[in-house]
């Protein structure tokens, strides 16, 4: 029982369950198929965004350019299909490559210069966003093929959206990476103690670049999924990802100084954010308040994490 309480996913799971039961009791339309579909779609896309940031939090850095990379990948995906008539799977692969290149560039500059990830990704945020606006001239791409639109908006087995399948695969792969593969363990080791991991033979620059590359790919996937869902390639995709991308991992107990993240708890964090956003809509609460609630959630979560940290330290001292 004590181990259960101390697990990262326990608190968020409890909150999620209470929220779902409470919402279902107050508003019967909450568990309607349409609403479940909307919730799952939000969970898929926001999960990808959150994972993109989570990988970087795991190495103890931050990536402000998650939204900019995602946006650039999204408009290149839509633009390739509309302007050059590239088939959708190829366009998706090219867009993922763009995300990969963006991430590798971030990681390369951070590892090479040793300057804080904050400044480097702030610069690349501006570069990627500028390229995005330069290409699109702030006009959306409307010519997304029907097959892509259908993929983002149809369901199977009742309310399950098709987008759930690739996203679920990515989620499991991320879990496998961080918990079973040596690269994932190296990422966590570098985040926990860079110096110690370098001494034990891990190549820190290589690990940093790899983490940023994975983050770029995840951001690109989120951008592509959002194009399929919105049915247009909007240049504003990615503008509002920043707060969200930090909220979910932090709610999931991620330590911002690095070395400790939880895939399951992050996904539950995404679910909590999605349910609360939905609740505000269902109960006709002002949509402007969503920002306030998100900010409050982050503060509350970091407060709880900090409190848990202090308690663990105290119990270590006693024993």
């Amino acid at each position, binding site marked *: 029982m004590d181990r259960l309480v101390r697990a990262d996913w326990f608190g968020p799971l409890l909150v999620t369950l209470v929220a779902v039961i409470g919402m279902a009791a107050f508003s019967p339309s909450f568990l309607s198929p349409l609403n479940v579909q909307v919730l799952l779609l939000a969970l898929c896309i926001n999960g990808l965004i959150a994972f993109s940031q989570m990988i970087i939090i795991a190495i103890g850095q931050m990536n402000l350019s998650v939204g900019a990379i995602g946006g650039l990948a999204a408009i290149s995906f839509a633009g390739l299909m509309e302007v050059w008539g590239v088939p959708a799977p190829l366009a998706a692969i090219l867009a993922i490559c763009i995300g990969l290149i963006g991430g590798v560039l971030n990681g390369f500059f951070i590892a090479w210069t040793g300057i804080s990830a*904050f400044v480097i990704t702030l610069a690349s945020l501006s570069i990627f966003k500028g390229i995005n606006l330069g290409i699109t001239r702030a006009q959306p791409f409307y010519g997304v093929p029907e097959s892509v639109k259908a993929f983002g908006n149809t369901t199977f087995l009742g309310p399950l959206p098709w987008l759930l399948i690739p996203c679920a695969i990515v989620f499991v792969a991320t879990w496998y990476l961080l918990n079973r593969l040596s690269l994932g363990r190296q990422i966590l080791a570098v985040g926990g103690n860079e110096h110690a991991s370098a001494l034990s033979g891990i190549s820190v620059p290589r690990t940093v670049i790899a983490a940023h590359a994975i983050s770029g790919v995840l951001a690109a996937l989120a951008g592509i999924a959002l194009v399929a869902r919105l049915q247009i390639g909007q240049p504003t995709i990615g503008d509002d990802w920043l707060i969200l991308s930090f909220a979910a991992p932090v709610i999931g107990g991620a330590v911002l100084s690095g070395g400790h993240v939880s895939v399951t708890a992050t996904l539950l964090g995404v679910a909590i954010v999605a349910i609360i956003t939905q609740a505000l809509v269902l109960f006709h609460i002002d949509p402007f308040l969503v920002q306030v609630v998100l900010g409050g959630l982050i503060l509350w979560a*970091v407060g709880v994490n900090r409190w848990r940290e202090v308690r663990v330290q105290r119990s270590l001292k006693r024993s």
Partner: protein
Amino acid sequence: MSIDSHSATPTPASPSGGRVSGNPRFYLTNEFGLICLIVVFGLIFALLAKNFFSPFNLFALGRVAAVNVMIGFAMMVVIVTGGLNLAVGAIGVCGAMFCGFLIQVLGLPWPLAILLGLALGAGLGFINGFAVVRSGLHSFIITLATMSIFFGAMVFLTRAESFRGLPPIFSAFGTARLFGFVSPLLIVAALVGVLLSIMYRYTVVGREMLAAGAKPEAAALSGVPVGRTIILCHMLSGSLAALTALLVMARNGAAIPSMAGQLGQDWLLPAFLGPVLGGTLLSGGRASPLGTFLGAILVTMLTNGLLLLRVGEFWVQACLGVLLLFAVLVDKARRSYLAHLKVA
């Protein structure tokens, strides 16, 4: 000139000044490099774009530069402590909207409204500083959350509507020209810069801020109230952000909720460009108001020049990002050059 918390530390050099003989202390500073760059780019733009040095363009440039300089100052005073304040944009807009509300809805006289607007900025800054000091968490995550909260609350309370019923003195101040080409906004920014320089160099509070940023433990041992100093820095940042937004308000002639973009994010890049170009260390302990001023002027000049050369407004943002990256790389080259000098 840069102001260091340890007067014995040699002033970092700029790469352009590396080979220059003469008085090395000034030639090696970041500020000297920036002045060189400003002169070089000024000449380039003057040759390529005929109207770059026209009085009107200089006036327009000064108005934009003043705001960028002030945004840089608002961030710089927090960077000094080794922290960040992502909420500068959100706090600024809150302050300006509050001022507009007081004038238009409550009918307060404008000097009082301005003071109350600045006070609100300081108050929101106090919330940031208090949360950072009490929780012991990095200011990045705290101000990320408060940025969302402040901006969301502001939009909720104002219903995203602007306050346009401002007294004519605001727009008169925003459009006034001294000597045909100097905007009074720039004078305000310069004045704030001088005051900040004096504060960091000669006052106890300013020295305490630098000490708390350079080495908090050492500062605490020598009797500096570190927590209180950090809260003070955040309050200063908040009121500077509010003052910046008031300048924007004078420029626009109205208090508009979207003046700093969604969540005030549009201010983030200029907020870091100025201080980083000007040689303020992100790890804290060193502040350079003159460097921040020159850095922001250089950025504004580049933006303005690129627009005059018809590079296309959308590409300018990418150029600014490249500039920040370039500044960081130059800084890295300079540091390895200095390390090389010490070894040799």
